[in-house]
């Protein structure tokens, strides 16, 4: 005979009670885990959508304003291209994408357009000192979900969405929607810019921004054509909103003290606000479930103590100290909480993975870290809710074991 055996045997003696409270805990934790799991992947999906709003951190020359950037960046100020490499090789967390740009005016058929040089990601990534170093060695993806599927081949039009493309040849160009319409150019045609022939690899979809009237080409080609060696007008950064809130901008500032680092406040604020709202909503649900579940468990435990007061009195008359009585009830709570936590994690994860895509329209994957959440919340709530009933039991008068006093 020992404490565990005493508790275990009592649990199975009152099977219907045990099943009722276990199912109660199980359902509560299942709901918590399903909500947390679906919310997590919904937040990632929202973050992914938010990323399409564009760059949210800009690195500009000191004297350039945000207005200059939005009016096609047609200023003569530049910053060294090497800044992009410095960012790439840094250990900054939360940089999802990076795009150095150089803007120069070009004239085509008597109209002014902006020729923007962009550097394909593959090139500055390759410049990192060794494989595995730098910010892209640990991509966090701002909500990208790794489904284990092979990456799809890149469509150049994703430049509009991602602000950066993987590869671009020296003689290739991408044309904004307005520019293509004005010049009557289509994909596959060629185009002469500043005396050099380019093949149009994509006409970009309309965005309603200044990008529609741009022509994009390889950064180094644009630098060569405009005689601006190894400089850029700006570096656009798509930062993950959580990391921006956690001080990404300050860290970029420290890394590049001679440049101006600004956030596109509206974009960041929207991202932070939406993710904050989702996280808050999920926490409110969790809190409600924990409070209601806790009250249910406390109620069950009080009833259990009342029902067993005779048995408790007997144990005390046999010499059981109050601490042992407290431990009997808390161990029972611990066992129920642990079993409910493990079961709730399994059931909640199953529900989230199967129902999540249908209900929230997002792919949901199992999150092993939620097992800790499930067991922590379940055991914590059960122990907390059982403490006062257990203490009441420990303070029972042993004389309750006698019929008539």
């Amino acid at each position, binding site marked *: *005979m020992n404490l565990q055996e005493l508790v275990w045997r009592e649990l199975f003696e009152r099977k219907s009670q045990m099943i009722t409270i276990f199912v109660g805990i199980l359902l509560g934790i299942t709901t918590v885990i399903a909500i947390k799991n679906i919310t997590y992947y919904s937040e990632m999906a929202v973050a992914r959508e938010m990323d399409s709003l564009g760059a949210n951190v800009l690195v500009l020359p000191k004297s350039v304003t945000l207005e200059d950037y939005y009016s096609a960046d047609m200023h003569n100020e530049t910053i060294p291209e090497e800044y992009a490499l410095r960012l790439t090789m840094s250990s900054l967390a939360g940089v999802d994408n990076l795009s150095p740009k150089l803007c120069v005016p070009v004239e085509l058929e008597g109209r002014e357009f902006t020729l923007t040089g962009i550097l394909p990601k593959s090139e500055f990534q390759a410049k990192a000192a060794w494989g595995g170093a730098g910010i892209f060695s640990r991509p966090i993806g701002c909500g990208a979900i790794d489904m284990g599927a092979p990456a799809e081949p890149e469509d150049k039009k994703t430049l509009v969405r991602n602000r950066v493309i993987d590869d671009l040849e020296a003689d290739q160009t991408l044309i904004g929607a307005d520019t293509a319409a004005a010049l009557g150019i289509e994909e596959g045609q060629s185009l002469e810019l500043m005396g050099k022939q380019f093949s149009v690899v994509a006409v970009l979809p309309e965005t309603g921004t200044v990008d529609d009237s741009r022509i994009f080409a390889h950064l180094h080609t644009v630098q060569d054509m405009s005689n601006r060696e190894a400089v850029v007008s700006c570096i656009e950064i798509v930062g993950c909103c959580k990391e921006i809130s956690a001080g990404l901008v300050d860290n970029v500032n420290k890394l590049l003290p001679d440049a101006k680092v600004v956030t596109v406040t509206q974009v960041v604020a929207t991202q932070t606000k939406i993710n904050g709202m989702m996280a808050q909503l999920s926490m409110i649900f969790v809190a409600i479930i924990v409070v209601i579940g806790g009250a249910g468990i406390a109620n069950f435990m009080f009833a259990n103590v009342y029902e067993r007061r005779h048995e408790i009195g*007997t144990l005390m008359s*046999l010499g*059981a100290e*109050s*601490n042992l009585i407290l431990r009997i009830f808390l161990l029972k709570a611990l066992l129920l909480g642990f079993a409910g936590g493990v079961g709730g994690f399994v059931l909640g994860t199953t529900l989230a993975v199967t129902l999540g895509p249908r209900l929230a329209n997002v792919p949901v994957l199992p999150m092993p870290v939620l097992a800790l959440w499930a067991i922590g919340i379940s055991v914590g709530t059960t122990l907390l809710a059982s403490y006062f009933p257990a203490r009441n039991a420990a303070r029972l008068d042993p004389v309750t074991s006698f*019929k*008539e*006093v």
Partner: protein
Amino acid sequence: MLSMQNVTKTYEMHRQKVVALDDATLEIPEGDFVSLIGPSGSGKSSLLVMLGGMLSPTSGRVMLNDQSMYDLDADGRARMRKANIGFVFQTFNLIPYLSAQENVQVPLYLSGTAAAEQRERAAELLQRVGLGDRLDHKPNELSVGQQQRVALARMLANDPAVILADEPTGNLDPETSEQVIGYFEEFNREGRTIVMVTHSPAAAERAKRVLKLRDGKIIDDRASLQQADAA
């Protein structure tokens, strides 16, 4: 061994003062066998549980081996019970989800006995009360007489010097009552001190000494007829 000095116990019930025990003074030497008799509500059970350290008096002192019980805290009294006192209840108070052997093991577990030794000693004690073949039976699989014998075995588990019994034959048929009283006499011969509450005059006279209570007062303290005859 056991003594009470001017012990009074009063309760407040529906704004009325109820006296359960009124200025009781009592000396129970080692090896004595005392039966407590009296009508219901006379204070017999209150006196018994006070001797067991389970009900604190309103005034007065209860002593066990020169130690004032109620100067100890609740856990201190629990330790004192564990070391010195064995209880027998009218309703047996066996733990329903444990087998006969496991019920007897409970006090042994409480006193820190190793599991193997617990099982061995419990089997031995159940053998002594004639239940060696009922070790794995749960209380609801035993007759009331057998349940009371399991309770007797459990009471003996920690070899108590004092046995406090609250109407131990109250729920038993005459034959089983006789058997239980026989065990008490045997335990007393072994040198254990016994205090037994009973409504049965016949059972009371099997003790060495009979205390009669009425309205919370000890109104008679005499040698039992059996004892007087023996003398």
